[in-house]
């Protein structure tokens, strides 16, 4: 055997190992959601079992799950849309305009992510209480925006900077307005960055647990909070939790697959020599 084939096999095995490690928890979650309580608690764990849909029946019988999923969807979509709406023009400005305080503004965006979220949980709770926003979608959207905007701004600024400036100048010469240049050049050509930041933003908002736990009770409770809420009391219904987890993961996967189609490289190919 040549050293090249050995190398390839090692490479392949390495990739398999990494993939297996990454996917095993997901597999365990899905498979567990089809187990009954006896199989779930079996030691050593069982690999073959008779699948049951009982967990899903229980989960959907509980209005918390459906409500939580709907709330998560509302909050994550609203956050993502708003983050893109405000973040992409900001990124365009940071990428292409010179203005006073640009470097400071840039740094400020970074500092937003320096503080551990839990440090702010109590102040945010008190603020939300004062503003009578507890247990609303709005408070979650606002707080998630503070996390997602910097991500959108960073990723998109970097992406917009990679667009040749002559394209904008050519468009200006042709009479395009600033808005049109942003809308018809920067957004389509920066689509990969916009897509990546949209995915990040959506996933973050969808999965966020800490603030959702602190700021919601019932009306605006999101899916992750609903999943953990089953843990109350003496018994831990693993099957139900795993089933809820599986239900939660699905929309994110679908969203990512749809958006990732825009994540192609080389969109600006052919623009310049």
């Amino acid at each position, binding site marked *: 055997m040549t050293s090249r084939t050995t190398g390839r096999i090692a490479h392949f095995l390495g990739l398999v190992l990494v993939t297996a490690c990454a996917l095993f928890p997901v597999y365990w979650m899905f498979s567990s959601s089809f187990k009954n309580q006896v199989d779930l608690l079996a030691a050593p764990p069982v690999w073959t079992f008779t699948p049951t849909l009982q967990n899903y029946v229980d989960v959907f019988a509980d209005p918390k799950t459906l409500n939580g999923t709907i709330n998560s969807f509302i909050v994550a979509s609203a956050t993502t849309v708003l983050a893109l709406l405000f973040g992409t023009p900001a990124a365009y400005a940071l990428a292409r305009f010179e203005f006073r305080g640009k470097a400071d503004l840039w740094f400020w965006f970074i500092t937003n992510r320096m503080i551990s979220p839990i440090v702010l949980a109590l102040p945010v709770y008190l603020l939300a209480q004062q503003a009578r926003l507890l247990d609303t979608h709005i408070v979650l959207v606002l707080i998630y925006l503070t996390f997602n905007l910097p991500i959108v701004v960073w990723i998109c600024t970097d992406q917009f900077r990679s667009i040749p400036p002559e*394209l904008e100048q050519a468009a*200006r010469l*042709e*009479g395009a307005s600033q808005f049109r240049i942003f809308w018809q050049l920067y957004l389509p050509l920066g689509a990969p960055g916009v897509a990546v930041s949209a995915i990040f933003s959506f996933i973050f908002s969808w999965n966020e647990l800490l603030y959702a736990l602190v700021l919601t009770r019932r009306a605006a409770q999101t899916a992750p909070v609903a999943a953990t809420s089953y843990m109350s009391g003496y018994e831990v219904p693993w099957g139900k939790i795993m089933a809820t987890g599986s239900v939660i993961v699905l929309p994110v996967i679908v969203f990512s697959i749809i958006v990732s189609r825009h994540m192609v490289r080389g969109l600006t190919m*052919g*623009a*310049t*020599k």
Partner: protein
Amino acid sequence: MAFLRLQNIVKRYGDLPVLRDVSLEAEKGEFVVFVGPSGCGKSTLLRIIAGLEETTDGQVFIDGADVTDVEPARREVSMVFQSYALFPHMSVRNNIAFGLKMSGMPKPQIEEAVAEAARILQIEPLLDRKPRQLSGGQRQRVAIGRAIVRQPKLFLFDEPLSNLDAELRAQMRIEIARLHRSLGVTMIFVTHDQVEAMTLADRIVVLRAGRIEQVGTPSELYARPANMFVAGFIGSPRMNFLDVEVVGSSQGAVTLVHPAFPDGPVSFPISRPAPMAGERVSLGLRPEQLNLEGRGRASLAATFDIAENLGGTSHVYAQIAGGETINIAIPGQPRATPGERLLASFDPQDAYLFDRDAQAL
């Protein structure tokens, strides 16, 4: 009043001066070529005319109006960028139509204008392709197409041919000349390539380090360069410069010595006041004005070094006394062998003389 007038244009990036007091006029329909070494400010000047760059000082007039503070789109100027700058996500058709759409032209008229431009540039079969599916020459035509549909008052080309291969370059050069003739619009063309400059230009503007060195028709610049820089820049192969000493001068003539003159001092006609005896000046001789057949009243003794055969002509490199190398352009091929002694002859009235400050005498 001239169609395009640049008045005392100054441009600085921070403290770095890029253009220092550039003034220039161009007539309607004229083809003006900017030449100069890399970084001398050609693109910057073009972008100032287009309005993409603000001037630090000075004014730009187009068609009688002061447009110094007018936004680019209102100047009715089209530019073909050094890098083409096609919109990569739009089809060729939409690239060409972009400016017309912005101006709110009705659809049927846009289609007509695009079709007309495509016909002129012979890119009709490419209209539905994306820029990445085109060759360099095709992209360049699309960029020109985008510029001509708007029927601008002024065309700006920034080294549009610099990335094309030699053959395509020659072909596009002719097409641009043809386009200029058929549209009759003022064009300003930036290039590094002095063949392009000589063949396309009505007038050439030679720039160096942000200043205009000389403006003139190609033949004027070739025949009467104002200084050594222009003399060295215009004409290919490059002019030979020899360091010579003045031994005598009279009204309209100057006598010079150089170790390579086989018969002692040589007298050269001169139009400006002659320098004093003892001064050192530069003698410029174009390679094509030197010959190996003894034609001319003066000559240089040289030793054959190497020859470049270009097919019909050859460039002969030879060493002369004093250690300088001269280049002689001759028809056919030299029959000399390395180390052989040659006599490079010329007519003193064809020679160029420059004073110590490199200004023409």
